[in-house]
């Protein structure tokens, strides 16, 4: 620490580095104590800072749910807070019209996989250049703990009081199979690899998807005997298995485990690029002159 500088002053300077990306007047957050959403917000602000991304070049898009509060209101600058389940189509529209922007979607499992599930798999198939950070807390948190398509078998929730009879989606595997450019899974305990993975997603072209297992102590944790954030993080710490190790394990050994790491990274043609190229080609053909001469017509 530089001599003579008051420690509060240094701390304020450091805090300010992150707070320039945040609406600090709405902090502390409205999240319940120990909620994973705050950790995801914290982890997201760091790569944006480290990559020296100009926040003006980012458009964050979200839907409805506690997780959807991460970009809006907490992240400062342009956010589209859309209706429940629809951030992906809005984000696709932004990327088509403003290709120079980094388009980031941060939303929950109920939003992205439940009501918006079809948008998600088709955007992955098309390889749209948007970055999707899914906050998967295995429940509809905001509305009081209803069954989500991610809730594990057997868990009792507000809408499955006698236990869930449905199988959950393994969403990272599904998005990888659908054709995304980059797919990874981490938890809110794995903050350092998660930040690295977010950096990767923010810089890699194409549909980039990170499933972040995150705790909802209030609407989910209390139903599974994990009423605090710490208890959930302890579980993430103990039951996570690196994907490299998981390939050596039997399905029985993997029961109850969370497979973490990078599932896929590949170069692929990107949807909005292809759309723009085609558009240009067709217009050039129709007008009979190259784009540089269009203004004369």
């Amino acid at each position, binding site marked *: *620490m530089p001599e003579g500088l008051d*420690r509060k002053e240094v701390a304020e300077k450091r805090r300010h580095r992150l707070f320039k990306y945040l609406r600090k007047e709405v902090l*502390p*957050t409205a999240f319940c104590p120990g909620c*994973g959403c705050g*950790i995801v917000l914290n*982890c997201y602000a760091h790569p944006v800072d480290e990559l020296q991304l100009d926040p003006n070049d980012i458009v964050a898009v979200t839907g409805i749910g506690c997780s959807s509060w991460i970009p809006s209101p907490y992240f400062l600058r342009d956010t589209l807070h859309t209706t429940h389940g629809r951030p992906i189509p809005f984000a696709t529209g932004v990327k088509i019209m403003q290709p120079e922007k980094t388009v980031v979607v941060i939303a929950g499992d109920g939003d992205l996989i439940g009501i918006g599930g079809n948008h998600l798999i088709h955007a992955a198939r098309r390889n749209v250049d948007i970055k999707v950070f899914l906050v998967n807390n295995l429940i509809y948190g905001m509305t009081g703990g209803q069954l989500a398509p991610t809730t594990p078998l057997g868990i009792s929730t507000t809408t499955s009081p006698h236990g869930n009879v449905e199988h959950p989606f393994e969403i990272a595997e599904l998005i990888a199979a659908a054709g995304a450019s980059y797919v990874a899974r981490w938890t809110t305990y794995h903050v350092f690899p998660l930040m690295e993975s977010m950096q990767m997603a923010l810089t890699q072209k194409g549909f980039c998807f990170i499933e972040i297992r995150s705790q909802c102590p209030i609407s989910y944790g209390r139903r599974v005997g994990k009423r605090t954030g710490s208890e959930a993080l302890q579980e993430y710490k103990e039951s996570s298995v690196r994907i490299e190790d998981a390939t050596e394990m039997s399905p029985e050994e993997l029961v109850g485990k969370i497979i973490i790491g990078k599932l896929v990274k590949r170069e692929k043609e990107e949807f909005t690029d292809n759309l723009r190229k085609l558009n240009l080609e067709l217009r050039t053909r129709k007008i009979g002159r190259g784009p540089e001469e269009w203004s004369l017509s």
Partner: protein
Amino acid sequence: MIEIDEELCKGCGICVDFCPLKVFETSDKINSRGYYPPLPVKEKDCVGCRLCELLCPEFSIIIINE
């Protein structure tokens, strides 16, 4: 060096539970929102790994290494 903004803290205890060197204890003084913030009682033992800073859901902890 550990700086805690006690007013941002929600007393979730994550920093207390996960610091690998057990630097924190929960304070017995309440903040204005009614939460018990952490106290870095063993600040000398801190190795500056920043795990507490990143796991804190409320930006309450700042670790200064330089």
